């Protein structure tokens, strides 16, 4: 080949573009647009992807290379374009979601001297984040800071929101932002023409593209819309007593607590709440909690308010039939003002629920009868209640009217007893050792008791086990060790939510499958067993 033919005007290498997306988000369409736009400019272009089922709902990538010189000027020569992205040789990473941008960084595809990152900052949670009880989400702020630091130039904004606003798919916004970032060797016209030629939904996509383009261009790439949505601050009714007796740091929580309890039951119940909180505050003060902003009072106040408003049949019936709830449902499902909405509730009350609204004695008798006749399971009935119909509405509304009766129910008695045990331990141990941290650790145990049905059952069992074997057993007197033991047990219980507590003190999580090719423990036994045999490499050691 004639070396001189490649004049100094021809680019040294293709522009390499890695698209990181989730299966089903239109990443393939995006790659096709890029190809079409490049072809429109007569630029040599190549795209590849990973096919089929391997990308279904999971993370996937598309890879495009564009050689930014018209083919007509190349005398029939074609540049060599790679099929796989090479770390360090990527010019642009376009990610449709924040964690996917993080994944591109993790795979070392971002180069601080070379790569422009165009990414949406919204989150689509992975299964691993969602299955954890409580909050298993990755830290978005950290990932955001990391990808920004890892790229040469970053254009980051919430493209899902922009897409929603413009009625387009996110891929069009991403394409627009990429074009607007200046990292693409293609003029805007060619990009828009590519969208137009693709047909289907072109109008919406063009709107999305324009919005994305504008964001990237005007924001200089550093505007951020995505924020972990700020918590809606509800109007909470201040109660004089809170403001009179409690320090200002705790007002927000306690006001919310009082409002919640009044809404749940009545003013007297809210008074009981504050009665219970006063000794906690006293402990907090005595142990020097003021320096920490009365964290013990705040945390206990929060947990106590949630616990005292336990979700019984009456509460569920009440929440399900509220006017605000009806409005929320219509909004959530996107119903227009003239649309009819039939709402069906999936309820399955069983023996526990029936017992929960009976007085303790009667509940006990019913339970004994059910056990004797083997009716524990058969009493539970799967109900489909239409709260949008008069009958269904009245049924639940009627149930919610049992509220004044709640103080006589067995569930109420059981919960109050458990709350008493919990608060008692906080106060007793807290005052005894003057250790706010220990008291906090015990307060946190209330997290275990929540949910409905089996979840609630298991939670209570876990809670009681920790109290029986650690907190109230008196076997550990060193506050630090005790604190650690409680924390360990609680974390283990939270990490293994579907299991009833193990009979032994070991609450270790399921060790998972052993793989046969993994070396069998370093235990001496194995060594003894195989000592007489020649080393057998990767052959599985038989047991």
């Amino acid at each position: 080949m004639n070396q001189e033919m490649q004049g100094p005007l021809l680019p040294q290498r293709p522009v390499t573009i890695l698209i990181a997306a989730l299966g089903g988000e239109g990443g393939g369409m995006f790659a096709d647009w890029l190809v079409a736009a490049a072809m429109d400019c007569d630029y040599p272009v190549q795209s590849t992807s990973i096919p089929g089922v391997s990308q279904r709902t999971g993370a996937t990538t598309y890879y495009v290379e564009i050689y930014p010189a018209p083919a007509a000027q190349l005398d029939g020569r074609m540049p060599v374009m790679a099929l796989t992205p090479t770390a360090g040789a990527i010019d642009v990473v376009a990610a449709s979601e924040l964690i996917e941008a993080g994944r591109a960084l993790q795979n070392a595809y971002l180069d601080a001297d070379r790569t422009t990152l165009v990414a949406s900052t919204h989150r689509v949670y992975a299964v691993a984040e969602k299955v954890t009880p409580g909050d298993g989400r990755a830290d978005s702020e950290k990932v955001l800071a990391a990808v920004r630091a890892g790229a040469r130039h970053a254009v980051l904004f919430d493209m899902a929101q922009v897409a929603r606003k413009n009625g387009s798919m996110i891929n069009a916004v991403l394409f627009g932002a990429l074009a607007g970032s200046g990292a693409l060797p293609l003029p805007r016209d060619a990009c828009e023409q590519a969208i137009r030629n693709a047909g289907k939904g072109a109008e919406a996509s063009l709107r999305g593209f324009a919005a994305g383009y504008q964001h990237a261009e005007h924001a200089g790439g550093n505007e951020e819309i995505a924020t972990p949505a700020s918590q809606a601050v509800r109007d909470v009714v201040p109660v004089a007593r809170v403001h009179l007796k409690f320090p200002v740091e705790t007002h927000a929580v306690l006001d919310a607590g009082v409002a919640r309890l009044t809404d749940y039951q009545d003013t007297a119940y809210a008074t009981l709440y504050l009665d219970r909180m006063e000794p906690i505050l006293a402990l907090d003060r005595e142990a020097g909690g003021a320096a920490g902003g009365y964290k013990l009072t705040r945390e206990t106040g929060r947990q106590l308010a949630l616990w005292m408003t336990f979700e019984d049949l009456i509460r569920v019936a009440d929440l399900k039939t509220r006017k605000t709830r009806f409005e929320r449902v219509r909004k959530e499902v996107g119903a227009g003002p003239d649309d009819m909405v039939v709402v069906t509730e999936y309820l399955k009350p069983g023996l526990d629920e029936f017992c929960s609204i009976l007085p303790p004695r009667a509940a006990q008798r019913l339970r004994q009868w059910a056990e004797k006749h083997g009716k524990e399971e058969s009493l539970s009935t799967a109900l489909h209640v239409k709260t949008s119909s008069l009958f269904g509405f009245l049924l639940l509304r009627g149930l919610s009217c049992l509220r004044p009766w709640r103080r006589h129910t067995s569930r109420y008695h059981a919960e109050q007893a458990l709350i008493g045990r919990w608060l008692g331990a906080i106060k007793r141990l807290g005052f005894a050792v003057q250790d706010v941290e220990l008291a906090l650790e015990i307060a946190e145990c209330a997290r275990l008791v929540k949910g409905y049905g089996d979840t609630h059952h298991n939670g209570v069992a876990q809670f009681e086990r920790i109290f029986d074997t650690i907190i109230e057993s008196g076997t550990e007197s060193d506050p630090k060790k005790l604190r650690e033991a409680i924390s360990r047990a609680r974390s283990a219980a939270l990490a293994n939510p579907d299991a009833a507590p193990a009979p032994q003190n070991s609450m270790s999580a399921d060790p998972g499958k052993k793989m046969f090719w993994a070396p069998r423990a370093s235990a001496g036994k194995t060594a003894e067993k195989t000592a007489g045999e020649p080393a057998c490499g990767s052959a599985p050691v038989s047991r």
Partner: protein
Amino acid sequence: MLGEDYGEGASIIQERSHAIAMKSQIWLLDPRPNLTSIVDMVEKGFQLSEASNTPVMLELRIRACHVHGSFECKDNRAPKFSRKNHLKQPVFNFGVIPLPPSIYAQEKHKVEARLPAAVKFVREQHLNELFEGANREVGIVLQGGLYNTVIRALQEVGLADAFGVSPIPLYVLNVTYPLVPEELTRFCSSKRAVLVVEEGQPAFIEEAINAILRRADMNDTFIIGKEVLPVAGEYTGEAVLQGIAQFLQLSVPDGVDHWQVAQARDSMGSRKKKVGDLLNEPIPPRPPGFCVGCPERPVFSALKLLQKDTGKIHISADIGCHTFSTLAPFSMGSTVVGYGLGLASSAGVAPMFDQRVVSIMGDGGFWHQGVTTGIANAVFRNDDSVLVIMKNGYSSATGAQQIPSTATGGAPGPAEIDMQAVLLAIGVKWLRTVRSYDVGDMLVTLREALDTPQKGLKIIIADGECQLERQRRVRAEAAKKLALMQPTVRTRFGIDEDMCTGDRSCIRLSGCPSLTLKENPDPLRDDPVTTVNDSCVGCGTCGEVAHAATLCPSFYKAEIKQNASRFDRLLDRTRRAIIGSLQGKSARGTS
């Protein structure tokens, strides 16, 4: 034509074609992965096949199968025979029948005539490509499919331009079996060191080159391959760059900017380290999973619930979308052997368990071979086992191709074959069909299958159409109806945010992508709440699971009726007015 996948692309690493090619004496083409080369090699491959009287395989790596590029076409030529231009005479030649003594004659013919003919054709037609370079000391021998990756690596160390012109000589094997010894000895002669870039293991090519040189008594050329390149796994851009840089550092040829080579290797290391510093924690993995509304998910929800009572059951999984059961949140399936082999592969292990084992099979796998290797065999042997057949109507995992039991709805074309009739004809005595979304029914049926004293094979057909296919149809129909102002009903599910306590049991039992998290609107709760997002198609699994597992009362189903009749709307308005007035009376109703 075959696809190979050495890495991340599909569910299974293949890497077996080379061994099969050598043992079966089938020639193996591995063209450079640009469309012109691929198309040329298809044409040459047919000619090679004719010239050597042997079948030829053309190997494409997974990304090459999905490449978008361009090539120049040639004019079509009419085939010698076709559906229109019929064959007139059948051919009989005992010499090609695999029976002795023909088979021995063929074996001899393979090595004495066909193999030399193939090597001759490859050599004379220049199927392998030699790219000369100025450097005389070193060279690279590579599989054709890796050409672009190798060029990218050379570009990164400043040893190739955008068009692939490099001072390092390259010998590109567009035919990886058989090799041409003369070409290899000529390429290697007078070179100090040659790098062999060969994906897959064992390293057949590298070993063959060593043998060829030894036979030619050429002992001065170092052959380097797996010492600097990964023994197994995909040869990604990074792996090849690393290998080539290390090769250059070892062989130190003249005319190479060694500083740039070292720089390329170092920056890879430092980038990795920097990433580690920036991201303290690993990014959560996101493997593929069941789609929103998938009819297979609820079956595994039922199996998960079942095992709460029975303890762990041996589940013999199969190939298909349902292999996703092996991932979170289900994590079930002890073995996956092959397409349609779920039941067959459980036959050996089933008698060793004190509880019946459960096998999974898709309807694709059923028709592929499961009906004979699995079901007919189990009935014949009277195996005591449970089989769940996922009847979703398509071979979904590979792109929803039609299969014999695809519902045709009376449309013209091939008629649907009734699976149930087939099973009864085979002699299956215990057969139930359950709508796959009815988690409660499925649970009861599974329990019955495990507990019944009846011996023999027990089959449950989980009936639910592939949701991807269903949505394609249903969405189009709904859009048409809406445009004509006809009544339509759209169903979706929701979660009452004030009732969700965030224990995520629902996600652990279903894992539907539409079940996700959002910030808790309650100021007293800090954990996020579970929510159903707009991708929900209203399959109902989450509600059914909530019922079957007695989870929580937060789930609701909303049916949104558009363009309802005037009477219905009047009724609805009245109902809403009454309910509204009842809500209004209570102070709490509006709180």
